[in-house]
């Protein structure tokens, strides 16, 4: 609401105060030595009531705006905190996956070294039948 941002609060308080004072003065217009003013008593009263109502409304709007802005700031702080936490979680996950994958690869390499050292001795003793290789290769095939 642009008018709430544009005008400072004291303007609305000022307008409210002035309109109340003028409204009060209208009851004493007959004592003011300007007779033409008394003829405008009702229009002046209507105008002051309108100005007072608008001022009260805009003061309420400003208070509401400030309340929501405070809530927004609170939520933004929470979001920033959550984003930092989320980033920490990402770093933790990446570190974890890198470490675990390295362990798995090292273990695999250890076993391959063991195979090259020990199992290789039985290469001539144990002949692998073609059906075994076929069965293995069929199991290896994924879903196409």
């Amino acid at each position: 609401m642009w008018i709430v941002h544009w005008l400072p609060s004291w303007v609305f308080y000022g307008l409210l105060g002035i309109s109340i004072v003028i409204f009060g003065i209208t009851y004493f217009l007959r004592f003011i030595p300007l007779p033409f003013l008394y003829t405008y008593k009702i229009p002046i009263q209507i105008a002051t009531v309108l100005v007072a109502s608008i001022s009260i409304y805009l003061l309420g709007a400003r208070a509401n705006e400030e309340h929501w802005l405070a809530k927004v700031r609170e939520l933004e702080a929470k979001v920033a905190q959550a984003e930092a936490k989320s980033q920490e979680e990402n770093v933790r996950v990446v570190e974890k996956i890198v470490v675990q994958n390295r362990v798995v690869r090292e273990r695999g390499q250890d076993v391959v070294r063991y195979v090259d050292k020990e199992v290789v001795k039985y290469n001539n003793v144990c002949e692998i039948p073609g059906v075994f290789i076929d069965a293995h290769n069929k199991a290896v095939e994924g879903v196409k």
Partner: protein
Amino acid sequence: MKYLSFLIFLIILQGCSSPVPVKRNFPQAPGVLLEPCPPSLKSLNSGAKLSDVATTIVENYTTYHECAIKNKTWIEWYQNQKKIFEEVK
């Protein structure tokens, strides 16, 4: 009076606007988790020896374990991020 009532109506309508300025997105997953597993496992050549068979099986198991870690971490990442996301209210 007609213009005045229009002005008042306009001001009252202005009071109804309430924008929602805080926008949130679910966090982006780390690149490591987005890398796909190898499309296929290693197969044996015809005439493979016992050591070739053992090596190929070990390599395939390694691939499986890597993918299993990735899958487990994905689930863990999603659950933790969901919890963090839902904490903000």
